[in-house]
């Protein structure tokens, strides 16, 4: 496969024999790292968009208040919220939903604790319009003392920070893998040059430019890079498909992220094997030309 006529018997080098597998492994790691970075970025953006479009208003119960008074207070608060610029919808969460939300803190027997559960209002915001929350909070205090607005900013910031860290780590791994690939390829090229020094001298003495010799190594780098890229892409595709299947069954960790995979993501991922081949060829050219300049012939 992909055989070129070369004056140097580069295929016989034991150091180069494992190059396709090494490049394949590097391409695999790079594709997985890039997939993680893409998914995390995508999920983060979507989450950011979703959360920035929502508020939760908590209306604590007032001691001694009967059901009618409570309903009147909640209605007044809902009216204040609805009248706020940028609010497109409000929904009062029913008791079951509130209990479910508080279940991690109060357990299943919240009724028996004698605690008055607050009323929670989920507020939907118009995209791109940020309501004046301090002004809303003031108005709510007048109709429902102790009302609190949660725009998820604190949780949002922490979670986004965590996701961005994962994304940066994945991108760093991707860069590291590409640099390591270049290093391995350069090492193999220099070893090949050293092994075939005698032949390189001969081709120089019969009139070859350094670039002629470099092209022979580039041809090998292209061939091995292509084989490695094929192997790595195949393994990465198999891994991602398996993750997709497990995620569909809800079994894989980060299944939400895996499910977020979209068809357009194939294109940036497809650039990685191509980049690996290009990096291998360019690295080889630079390494060989540098080494040749140090040779006497």
């Amino acid at each position: 496969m992909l055989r070129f006529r070369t004056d140097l018997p580069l295929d016989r080098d034991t150091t180069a024999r494992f190059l396709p597998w090494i490049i394949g492994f590097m391409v695999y790691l790079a594709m997985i790292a890039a997939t993680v970075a893409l998914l995390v970025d995508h999920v983060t953006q979507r989450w950011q968009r979703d959360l920035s479009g929502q508020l939760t208003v908590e209306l604590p119960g007032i001691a001694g208040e009967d059901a009618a008074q409570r309903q009147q207070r909640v209605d007044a608060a809902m009216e204040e919220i609805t009248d706020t610029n940028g609010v497109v919808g409000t929904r009062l969460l029913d008791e079951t939903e509130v209990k479910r939300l508080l279940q991690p803190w109060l357990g299943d027997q919240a009724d028996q604790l004698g605690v008055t559960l607050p009323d929670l209002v989920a507020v939907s915001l118009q995209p791109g319009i940020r309501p004046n929350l301090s002004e809303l909070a003031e108005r709510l205090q007048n109709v429902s003392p102790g009302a609190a607005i949660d725009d998820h900013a604190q949780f949002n910031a922490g979670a986004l920070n965590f996701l961005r860290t994962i994304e940066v780590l994945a991108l760093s791994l991707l860069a590291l893998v590409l640099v390591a690939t270049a290093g391995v390829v350069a090492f193999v090229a220099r070893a090949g040059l050293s092994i075939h020094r005698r032949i390189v001298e001969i081709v120089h003495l019969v009139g070859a430019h350094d670039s002629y010799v470099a092209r022979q190594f580039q041809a090998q780098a292209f061939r091995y890079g292509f084989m490695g890229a094929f192997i790595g892409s195949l393994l990465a595709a198999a891994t991602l498909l398996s993750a997709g299947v497990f995620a569909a069954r809800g079994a894989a960790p980060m299944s939400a992220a895996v499910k977020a995979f979209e068809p357009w993501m194939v294109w940036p991922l497809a650039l990685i094997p191509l980049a690996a081949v290009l990096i291998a060829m360019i690295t080889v050219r630079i390494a060989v030309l540098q080494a040749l300049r140090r040779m006497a012939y």
Partner: protein
Amino acid sequence: MVLFDGVAVRYAAGPEVLRGISFTLAPGSFHFLVGPSGAGKSSLLKLIYLGLRPAAGRVELFGRDVSVLRRSDYPAMRRRIGVVFQDFRLIEHLSAMDNVALPLRIAGVRETDIKRHVPELLSWVGLKHHLDALPATLSGGQQQRVAIARAVISRPSLLLADEPTGNVDDQIGVRLMYLFEELNKMGTTVVVATHNEGLVGRFTHRQLRITQGTVKLVDPGAQAGAETGAADEHSEASYAAEAERQESA
């Protein structure tokens, strides 16, 4: 074509192998480079084919001072020089055909031309039936002929042969010399390094004799010798004048 002026050769920090070498090779001339083994014949040839830099003095090749040549200038100069190495320096994994085709491929000659010219030349040197043979399967003499074919395939302006008849019998040796003479008649400047005095004696070409690190010009045709170099500037001048005469002719 080639000018040496006070040239010295030294390997690393060792003593000078050659010193005060001055001579001129006129275009179209034929010289034997004679001397015992280890006298420095190969070193002198290396200086000419840009395989070695002089420790002192000036070397001019095709009218250019080699000390000011850049690395990127070397290939163009080397393509005008054909070299037959003493150890052949064939590429082991390439066939006789591919070894001979190497200078042409490097020069970017079309494959159709290569496939026409290379077998023709290999037939001429008696290797018609060994086109696809690897060097390891050929005898010493056959390898030498492949090396000679590689050196002459691109019709060089200057042909350097280092002990080209060392591995062949006298009959083939003489035939190879006739090949070099044919090339010489077509305008190629030829330098044949040898320690085979018997072979040298059969021809009347000028001789550059290396003794004790210096070069002495001997012209059997004129029955006169002249030592070249700083020690004998008169002889050098005479030879240079002769070289100029040949060049203008």
